[in-house]
């Protein structure tokens, strides 16, 4: 299978701190790919680098053979990468539906005159994406919440909303930074199911998560980061079996 995302010698330095040091790995198309590692290992930095939020010091990143290293965040989104944030970043002053619609931003084509005249093109695409958004809200389990204020949602629902919003981008690659943090087992299971359904729609998923049980079930491949270095990379079962990984990470958590 051809890799969708290919990372080569990616290095990110903050001041003197090497947050990522020469990390390389591939993410297969339509895979659920896990990234694990202890706190401060550089996982979020990796997601940030892929989405234009962290300045790349050296290395290359390609998405479907296109170089995307160092492009600004909005361009990364345009290239088909969507993400969620480790610390939830919703638009608190907007409704749930409006939040989701921002995810569809890149699909809108109407120009200023269309908007001012509310031309058929403008009305049509607005209607189309509204319906899509309602669909995504159903998909993530937020049925009936469309008009609620995003800031007033429960924590778990906020996580779901972030995913719905990202999905409306119609991404090729979805990056999930600890989407289950702070959830109980039942909630985690629901999100797990959700992620599988996302993949079934043809979206490649890269997920960061600290819960190893979940990761063992969910991911085909995992990459292990430790102090900004790639410690291991491969099929989930193999990687989990490696002693170095167990020492560095699993030993502590299980």
């Amino acid at each position: 299978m051809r890799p969708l995302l290919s990372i080569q010698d990616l290095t990110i330095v903050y001041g003197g701190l090497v947050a990522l040091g020469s990390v390389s790995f591939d993410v297969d198309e339509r895979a659920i790919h896990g990234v694990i590692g202890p706190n401060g290992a550089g996982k979020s930095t990796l997601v940030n680098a892929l989405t234009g939020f962290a300045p790349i010091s050296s290395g290359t990143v390609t998405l479907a053979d296109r170089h995307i290293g160092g492009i600004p965040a909005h361009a990364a989104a345009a290239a088909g990468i969507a993400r969620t944030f480790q610390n939830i970043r919703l638009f608190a002053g907007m409704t749930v539906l409006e939040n989701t619609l921002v995810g569809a931003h890149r699909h809108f084509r109407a120009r200023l005159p269309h908007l001012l005249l509310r031309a058929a093109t403008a009305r049509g695409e607005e209607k189309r994406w509204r319906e899509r958004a309602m669909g995504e809200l159903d998909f993530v389990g937020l049925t009936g919440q469309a008009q609620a204020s995003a800031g007033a949602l429960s924590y778990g629902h906020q996580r779901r909303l972030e995913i719905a919003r990202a999905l409306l981008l119609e991404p090729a690659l979805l990056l999930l930074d600890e989407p289950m943090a702070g959830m109980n087992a039942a909630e985690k299971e629901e999100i797990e199911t959700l992620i599988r359904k996302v993949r079934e729609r043809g979206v490649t998923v890269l997920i960061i998560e600290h819960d190893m049980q979940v990761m063992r079930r969910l991911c085909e491949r995992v990459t292990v980061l430790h102090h900004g270095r790639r410690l291991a990379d491969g099929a989930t079962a193999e990687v989990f079996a490696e002693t170095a990984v167990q020492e560095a990470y699993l030993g502590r958590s299980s």
Partner: protein
Amino acid sequence: MDFFGQLLVNAIMLGAIYSLAAIAYSLVYGVVQLVNFAFGELFMLGAFICISLMLPSVRLFGLEAPMPALPFLLAAPVSIAVVAAIGVVVERLAYKPLRNAPRLAPLIAAIAVSVLLQSLAQSVWGAEELSFPSFALSDLPPIILFDSIYVSVMEIVVLITALVSMLGLTLFVRRTRMGRAMTAAAEDREAAYLVGIPVNRVIALAFLIGSGFAALAGVLYAQAYGFAHPTMGFLPGLKALTAAVLGGIGSIPGAALGGMVLAVIETFGAGYLPNGSAYRDAISFAILILLLMFRPQGLLGRPELNDMPAGSLVGMLGQYARAGGVGRLFAPIDRLFERMGAGSLVLNVALFCTALALAFIITNDFWLRILIFVVTYGLLASGLNIVVGFTGLLDLGFVAFWAVGSYFTSILFILVLKNQFGVAPTDIWWLFYVNLIAGGVLAAGAGMLLGYPTLRLRGDYLAIMTLGFGEIVRIVATNWIDLTRGPMGIRGIPTPSLFGYPLNDPRHLYLVGVLLAAALLFLLSRVVRSYVGRAWVAIRENESAAEAMGVHTARYKLYAYASGGFFGGVVGVFFAHSQQYISPLSFTLFENILILMLVVLGGLGTFIGPFVGALFWIVFLQVAQGFSLFQAMPELRYALLGALLVALMVFRPQGLSARARVPLSIEK
């Protein structure tokens, strides 16, 4: 040579004062990351209190009050102590409740405190200058260097005082436990809190010392120039802020250096550039802007200070605001606005018809004129609201667009067509309608142009830079006499007319205003209720998330500036033709602050809010003139506005019509 030498001496004296005030900004910014705009007013209070203490009696609230007639050396420290205490009280009441609020809240609170203190001082001490009494030291003859450079004894005292107090502060910060705690809190407030540093006390201390420095600077300034005046703190406050940014805000040696460098550049610029003294303040603002563009960390500062916690005032409904009883107070208003904001066509049409009907119900031309102002300011506030309310960018230079529209049409009609080509303004009545659009487009272009350099900035720095632009435009309009006729203004601008039928009485002008408002709001609502509006609000709520969702935030910010500018330009054209006379007097920073306050008062990010704010405030301004209290102290009205805004920030940052929330898509 004596010119150069004298300028250098002048610059050093000015620099010493700037440095002291810059330290106030820097110290507080370092600890709480807030540009406390009110330092300019604390500077002014220092001067007033010191002078008052030195006199045998002073007129307070128009009444003669006995005073202790202290000697300067006693009055100065007492006034500094009093102002330092005021600074701490201000922090406690206005800023502390907002410590975890979005950055816009304390920033607006700071501007409101500034308006409050200045207006209050004017009510207490009156609007005229209070001259600085002479005393033994000030009466000594000047020292003459090289036969031609004059230095007064007090100037040497100023310099020594500045050096000693800066040295003292440095020692305090380095050597004492509290001082080191302050440095630690400046590095990382959370961490400082965790390791047991009493953060609240440290912040209070920073305000105490900062306010003391501001007061000291004010006392020395008042002595040097011989007077105190309620507005005296405004410009030196901005200069000190510029100096603090120049030196690297947050850094004490930086502030000292920045003050000196700024004073030198400003003084020599004024001395050697052609017509330099007229553009003196513009030079400072230009430096500020260039600095923020190319080296926001200043000479000695660290780069990462300039970012802002995400979130908006509007998104904070009930989150940090301690509504309580106030919440109940607003409940009926909320219900009303909730219905309005839902965008019901019937309600909007009814509102529009009511506005039109007012023109016929009200028979008094005076009240119609007031309504014209309500519409004008409501529209200006709506334009600013696009930038501040929807997109979340604090813009203090908005009046520039208003000025662009006004000047564009006036120059074209009067200075070019009438004076150069002899075209009678009444013959080209149609040009007014063309100019509404052209002026709007021109101002939109100006909005993009001025917006571009601010794109990378957030929060405080953005506010400061836009303020700089606004002031530069005003200074240029005042001094470029060949283009604008400068302070003389342009008169004889024709009123709007239709096929030779003049629309010049207040009723017609009001109707034109209402139609204009309806048209602009209609267009705006179409833009806001689309992906563009959603992108704006997304930027306001969380810029990085917006960017991650594919919103080209820089581009949409420019769109916001352009749309705001368009509003400003169109209103400017209307304003010029309804007033028939314009001068730079209309486009001051204070007007900008007033417009900002109308938006905040009415409700950020709503369509109706700016008009609610304008109606409330402009009608109040007029009605208040009927009360003897406000007749005796007209400034008290603005003090009231300042106090109201602070309270609003603490208890209800979303403004009066918070619930008139604008839906960001077409309802189905």
